[in-house]
């Protein structure tokens, strides 16, 4: 059962990869399309990692762009000095670890907070990080970093994103993932069965931050320009919108949500003034008709398809 699921997932990934590759080689996809694919990858990883914190462990966070920025700047500073694949790997590891440490640093003092208060605390944290990058000499302040070596291509990003999302998914389906979900459901009940709720809340923040750091590193090495302003509240909200739209507590939801919203905003690029309005109206409509998000807490699986088929044939 599990094996069949894994094989199906790998087959699907290989099919998508090959399809993109063919489209790219035949020139049907130009560099503009490639940029969209890169954005989708980054947003997917951001959404899945935020979903771990907010959707699965139930800790509302408005600071995800802050974690991303740490990974981005750390990776950029390293690859500027070591512009090679090894430098990039080093930057990715250093950036994601630095981000995880900040995740710990925010997770511990905010343990007692929940809901709105936690959202404000995480927002504050992200703003502090932004201000630090604005004022540091090494990050070149408001002007930001330019000419970062462009070490990423879409193939790399595709693989990194797939691997990272698979790791997040494994964590969620493990005993530890269950423990995180139980905290979202009921903290008192979780404690009564012996779950260390403090440990898992902090772990969720650290792991979520780690993967946000990876997506930051990918961003830096693909888009080769970093400014502190990119990682503001708006970016955090963008990620949150993807997560809520796809379904809090559904990894497949975050994947589909990221692809969908990134595509839509790319398609609307030419209608700049209309873009925000259409985007907002669409979000309102989805939230009215599917308040639990596109997938709710469901995952896409064979079982879901067979159930749907049965329902159809019963009609």
């Amino acid at each position, binding site marked *: 059962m599990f094996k069949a699921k894994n094989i199906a997932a790998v087959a699907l990934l290989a099919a998508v990869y090959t399809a993109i590759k063919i489209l790219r080689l035949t020139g049907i996809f130009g560099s503009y399309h490639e940029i969209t694919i890169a954005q989708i990858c980054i947003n997917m990883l951001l959404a899945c990692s935020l979903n771990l914190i907010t959707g699965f462990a139930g800790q509302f966070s408005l600071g995800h762009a802050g974690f991303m920025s740490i990974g981005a700047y750390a990776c950029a500073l390293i690859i500027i000095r070591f512009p090679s694949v090894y430098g990039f790997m080093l930057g990715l590891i250093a950036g994601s670890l630095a981000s995880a440490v900040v995740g710990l640093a925010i997770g511990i003092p905010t343990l007692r907070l929940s809901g709105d208060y936690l959202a404000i605390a995480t927002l504050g944290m992200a703003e502090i990080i932004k201000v630090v990058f604005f004022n540091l000499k090494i990050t070149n302040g408001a002007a930001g970093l330019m000419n970062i070596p462009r070490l990423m291509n879409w193939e790399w990003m595709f693989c990194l994103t797939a691997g990272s999302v698979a790791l997040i998914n494994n964590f969620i389906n493990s005993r530890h993932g269950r423990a995180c979900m139980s905290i979202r459901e009921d903290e*008192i009940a979780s404690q009564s069965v012996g779950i260390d709720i403090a440990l898992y809340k902090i772990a969720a923040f650290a792991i979520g931050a780690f993967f946000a750091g990876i997506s930051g590193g990918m961003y830096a090495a693909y888009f080769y320009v970093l400014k502190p302003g990119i990682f503001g509240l708006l970016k955090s909200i963008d990620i949150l919108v993807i997560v809520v739209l796809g379904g809090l507590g559904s990894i497949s939801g975050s994947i589909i949500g990221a692809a969908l919203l990134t595509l839509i905003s790319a398609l609307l690029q030419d209608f700049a003034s209309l873009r925000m309005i259409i985007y907002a109206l669409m979000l309102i409509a989805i939230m009215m008709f599917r308040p639990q998000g596109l997938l709710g807490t469901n995952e896409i699986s064979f079982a879901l398809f067979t159930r749907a088929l049965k329902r159809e044939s019963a009609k």
Partner: protein
Amino acid sequence: MLELKSLNVHYGVIHVLKDVSLTVGRGQIVTLIGANGAGKTTALRTISGIKAPSSGSIILDGQDITKIPAPKRVVLGLSQVPEGRRIFASMSVYENLELGAYLRKDTKAVKSDIQDVFARFPILGKRQKQPAGTLSGGEQQMLAIGRALMLKPKILLLDEPSMGLAPILVNEIFDIIKNINEQGTTVLLVEQNASKALAIADIGYVLETGTIVLSGTGAELAASDDVKKAYLGG
């Protein structure tokens, strides 16, 4: 087997438990009764380690556990059914029971213990795939008890299991508690339903605004004038 020695507990400046001492012997059902706000839930939260006492000690099987963190106390055999049927609402009945065994590593035995819970509560077996939040109040209470039993506790701490249940269900729940106890689990039962609790208890304690004012066997307390007046409506 469980002993509280002059426990004092504060919430900020509010002194909620004052010099509370009580003993639960192996194999007994001990009940702690008292009105709203007497401090019953606080006593259980302190025993299970969620709330730290300001002074006094908690002894389990001769070991001082006052400083041991909550998750470790569960490993030692203290299992709590929290007040107000705290279940994992959007997870299935089966998943709730699996989470009850979160600390256990013996996966096979867990599966058969889940079947044992279904044997004890057949209705839970019938509803095993259903989200726990869709169960009726009584079924949720059964699930909360079943989940606590998944840990095979030495001592089961129950916080007002009869709260908000219809009279027939109340009787059923008390029968279940008695039955669990007869099969070898020591029980500390917190209740407002004094008559029912005293009827099945070996020993009872009466808590009044944080102080134990009376104690005795279940029968003695049920016959006591003070208890009758205050808690049994006579």
